[in-house]
């Protein structure tokens, strides 16, 4: 399969007054053509920092980035100048943010904001751009697109604003779209609408998607491959169905058990004890061992490597679990 993104050994560090915050520690990421890859984790695990580093959106300083390679669509972009990055961003790589209200300009009509994409990246005239904008809004399922293009963001509902962001991201048919928690701020019924549109557009346009989220049910409904992150490291990588039917890492197991389901028993919530370690005070050995019920002596001393299992899966655990919850070794 053709690779759209190949990220190798990404490290991001924030030096602060109370110590080094190692936000991302050696992350590898592969996104294939037309693939939807999900990056899952709790807040503070480094998933957003990873996605922003790929877009080269992190300010340096404060961030210190070390990376072996960011290969995007066959070219190395880790040493691109800011100007070159501006050409790539929006045109070949686009981003959808979580909060549509704050990522749209409140004093510009949404039509003008999307027009900018075409004018900037495709050199269209204002008139041509507006035609394309209306078509994009129509495609994304906004009722009365021509009238809506003249609305300001505050005149639209949350779901419509998120659709406008989708239209903007897909405007130039980019190779890769990074969606950072695209549906977290939305209601369930609107979330279903937006996810359906996102998946439809992604398949229709042949775009690859990197979905950054904490919501496993969103992952289950649209992703192909899943990376689970914990405290700055990838702990598990697997195709979506295999991950959900047989998770190997105890953290993934806990995370899945913590998602309440409609068919669960009453009044019993499965919990992972403890909390995510503070990024400046990470534990020794495996970062998850203080919360892991299977932790052994080796886990306290040694960080396990990310190793391959069953061909297409990877897991960072000394004693990965099998489907029955038993240890492999």
């Amino acid at each position, binding site marked *: 399969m053709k690779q759209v993104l190949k990220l190798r050994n990404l490290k991001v560090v924030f030096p602060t007054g109370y110590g080094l915050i190692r936000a991302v520690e050696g992350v590898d990421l592969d996104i294939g053509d037309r693939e939807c890859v999900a990056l899952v984790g709790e807040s503070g695990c480094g998933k957003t920092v990873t996605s922003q580093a790929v877009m080269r959106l992190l300010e340096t300083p404060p961030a210190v980035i070390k990376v072996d390679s960011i290969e995007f669509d066959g070219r190395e972009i880790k040493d691109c100048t800011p100007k070159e990055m501006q050409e790539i961003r929006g045109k070949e790589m686009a981003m959808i943010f979580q909060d549509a209200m704050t990522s749209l300009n409140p004093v510009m009509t949404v039509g003008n904001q999307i027009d900018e994409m075409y004018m900037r990246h495709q050199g269209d005239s204002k008139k041509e751009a507006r035609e394309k904008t209306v078509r994009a809004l129509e495609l994304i399922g906004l009722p009365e697109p021509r009238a809506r293009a003249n609305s300001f963001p505050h005149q639209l509902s949350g779901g419509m604003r998120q659709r406008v962001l989708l239209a903007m991201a897909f405007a130039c048919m980019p190779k890769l779209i990074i969606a950072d928690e695209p549906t977290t701020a939305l209601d369930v019924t609107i979330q279903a609408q937006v996810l359906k549109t996102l998946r439809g557009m992604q398949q229709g346009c042949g775009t690859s998607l990197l979905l950054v989220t904490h919501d496993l049910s969103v992952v289950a409904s649209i992703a192909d491959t899943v990376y689970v992150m914990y405290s700055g490291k990838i702990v598990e990588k697997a195709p979506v169905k295999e991950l959900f*039917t047989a998770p190997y890492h105890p953290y993934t197991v806990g995370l899945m058990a913590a998602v309440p389901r409609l068919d669960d028993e009453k009044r019993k*919530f499965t919990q992972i004890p403890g909390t995510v370690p503070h990024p400046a005070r990470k534990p020794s050995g495996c970062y998850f061992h203080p919360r892991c019920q299977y932790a052994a002596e080796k886990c306290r001393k040694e960080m396990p490597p990310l190793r391959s299992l069953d061909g297409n899966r990877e897991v960072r655990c000394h004693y990965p679990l099998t489907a029955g919850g038993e240890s492999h070794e």
Partner: protein
Amino acid sequence: MSEILELKNVSVHFPVKGGLPFFSRGMIQAVSDVSLTIKHGETFGVVGESGCGKTTLANAMIGMVKPTAGQVLFKGVDLNGLPRDEFKKMRRQMQMIFQDPYSSLNPRFNVYQIVSEPMFIRGEDSEEEMKARVVELLELVGLSAEDLYRHPSDFSGGQRQRIGIARAISLNPSFLVCDEPVSALDVSIHAQILNLLVELQERLNLTYVFISHNLADVKKMCDRMAVMYLGKIMESGDSDKIFRQPLHPYTQALLAAVLDTSFDERRDQIVLQGDIPSPINPPAGCRFWQRCPKAMEGCKTVPPELIEVEEDHFAACHLVNGFPDVELPAGCDEPVDKEDVQV
């Protein structure tokens, strides 16, 4: 089981100000004509999308907003008829847990000050008594005496929510409103807080109103529940019955919209079109008709009543209950042509 709280035809309307001074441009009908009863010792769930009036309803339940019409009876006493000092005494029995543990705790107070504030305001305890009580409360919610003089910024989201819970139960309330208590927290912390709530309920014999937009949480927590849409109750009653057989098309759509991790292909996806209409001018007739996949012509004009379909299972839908026996225009049970409806 006896009733602890009863709402009788409660409406809460807020004027929309703007334009000329002293003139309002309309009313936001946040809650319209809601009647329900909450029994002693149960967990009552309120579900709905944002803007449907869940929080306003909760505020009306504990007297934080005055209803425009209707009565709120707590243990048989009308809250809004009480003189102020009587009301304050009553309010001690009803407390609230807030959604956002980051903004609901004063960042300049330490844990002792936060948790003891309700007792301090009551003014019946000495310093030593309060301190002993706070330590007891902290241990009850899974914190320790060492945390007494730390500030909210030293704690994680889950721990902050525990502090908020300790504060809420400090005056031994019997009725607790939990307004989205876990939606601001991480998934792995979710379960910890919900387990704590269940445990406290058993130990302290509490009645909960559990507000949430997460149906799975509601299903697991609640004995009875109400589904709200645009300020009205669409369906209410025993939660097991509602989940087993949702009658209202809105409840059905909400349930279908819950994404699952089980890869069950059989579930049909009902994706609702459009957004919640504005509560300033809610649609006449059924409030849901514009988005309802099964809307009929009559739904546009005739508002449905909340009618008991089976024991402790109410629904407000013409599809379930049929149209009332009044004069109706012809063809009221024809399906609505969705092409004409712009939502």
